């Protein structure tokens, strides 16, 4: 093996642009087909999340009156000598509503953060 002068090796495509230099945000803005795919994905994910919260809500608001209607013995139960229905409808339902709201707000902010990370990627 004879000693040879070293040769610099370079890519022949060094000046060529990469496949995708513009962020998806511009596709969103210009309503291209690609932008539509992304925004549709976001809307679908958000809708699924909202429907989950609404499902919990509908089940409780249909279910609790129905339970009181179908099982009369619950109507007269007491907890620490306060009637149970008063505690459920008058007090317990408020922190439950707030917790659900807080959970939703956090979940949807996470969803949006993921979306932003994807569309602003170069």
């Amino acid at each position, binding site marked *: 093996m004879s000693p040879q002068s070293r040769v610099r090796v370079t890519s022949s495509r060094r000046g060529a642009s990469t496949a995708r230099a513009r962020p998806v*945000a511009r596709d969103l803005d210009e309503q291209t087909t690609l932008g539509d795919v992304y925004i549709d994905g976001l809307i679908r994910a958000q809708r699924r999340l909202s429907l989950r919260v609404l499902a919990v*809500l509908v089940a409780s608001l249909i279910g609790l009156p129905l339970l009181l209607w179908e099982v009369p013995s619950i109507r007269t139960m007491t907890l620490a000598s306060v009637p149970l229905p008063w505690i459920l409808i008058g007090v317990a339902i408020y922190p439950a509503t707030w917790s659900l709201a807080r959970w939703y707000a956090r979940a949807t902010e996470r969803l949006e953060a993921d*979306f932003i990370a994807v569309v*602003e990627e170069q």
Partner: protein
Amino acid sequence: MNSLLSAVSVAVVCLITLLVGGLGLRLSRATSDFYVAGRTVSPRLNASAIGGEYLSAASFLGVAGLIYDRGVDMLWLPVGYTVGYLVLLVVVAAPMRRSGAYTLPDFAEARLGSRRIRLASSVLVVGIGWLYLIPQFHGASLTLTLVTGAPDWLGGLIVMVVIGLAVGAGGMRSITFVQAVQYWLKLTALAIPAFVLLAIWFRQGAPAPVTTTAWASPFAAGGVDSHPLYWTWSTLIALCLGTMGLPHVLVRFYTNPDGIGARRTTVTVIALLGFFYLLPPVYAVLGRGYLPTLPASVRSDSIVLQLPATVLPGLAGQILTAMLAGGAFAAFLSTASGLAMSVTGVLDQELLRPGLARATGGDASEIGGFRVSAVLAVIIPYLLSRVTAPLGLATTVGLAFTVAAATFAPLLMLGVWWRGLSRWGAAAGLATGAGGAIGAMALSIVGGPYDGWLGALLSAPAMWCVPLAALVTVVVSVATPGSIPSGTARIMVRLHTPERVALARSRLRD
């Protein structure tokens, strides 16, 4: 003595409202300040303002009165008022803020690109606003007459003048501060007397309230309605979905800095409302203990105001009564000013501004038209409140919720989440919902009361007319794909893309 203290307390609340409104006046410069406070209100301030605006005569007096009168089934009303904000949160809060529109009619026009649907929405906003304003004037008259013996036209007149001045002078910016102060005023005014009365009740050995089974346990015979389960469900639907369609509620969301702010505000609102609604049942239960029967001429709406003087004769009772009267006026003033603000905005945009521009060739000042609209927005419902017999405060408010649930709720839900909504679909849905809800209520008030299922269906129409309106909207939209607005794709991008993503073309400038 009693009447003097209460009169002073009512006067102080009115003065605070005007003073804080006046402070806002110096900050109001541009037209957008008048409408939505320049969109720079923080979530916490905004949440207090929403709470302050939302807790009306119905919440402060009406809920306790209804629970006192009809028992545990009425606890569902404040639940519905609160859960309405959860539905609003998951369905429209952020998209509505991102829509960039000022009012419900603005949204309808932006989404559907139709002047006619905008006009129909405007008529509904004014109608719902006035329907909601009438019980505020009734409540003010009832309160002032009860605590000071003033003639019954005076209370409503005071509220009308104060909100007319506050709205006409400062617009929304001043109202935001006023509303935030009034939430805390109302909570304090209802909480302190409640704790004092509870403490006295415990010291007296916690005597059991005089109750019947029908009052204390759900769905017992002689309760709310011939079909109590249906009534409960239908009322919950009206309240949960109606909240998002109330004109003074949604306009608040435009004052948030962004969509995330709008959601955080709503979560705080739910907490604030939850705290507040723990209090009315206390008055109802204590009322059953100390005032088992009311004279036939006294409406149960007044139970909150009657209780302190009954439990605590003398000066202490008078001070508590004065406090409650002040809090009640804070409730009337805050809700009425929020409603008046929305109705004023719509009247100004649809009626006054185009009319003035035609009459003066474009010379009239914008703020002048706004002030004329403010006067119109309060005088007409005041006059209506003088000629209508008061139903229960919470009952009248319920009518406004039902109309909002049957008209705006399907439009907003489908408009935000479904690309397929067409102009004809939206118009047909609005017509069905408005016709069904207003028709049923008119029939049951004028021709009723009816017995059995007919009476139940007519007096609580939300359970059938909200799904019907939504169904008609969807079916007609599917049948008329040609009238799906061409800008739908762009609007969907605007409604759902987070603000941090830069959109130069799809978003409106604030």
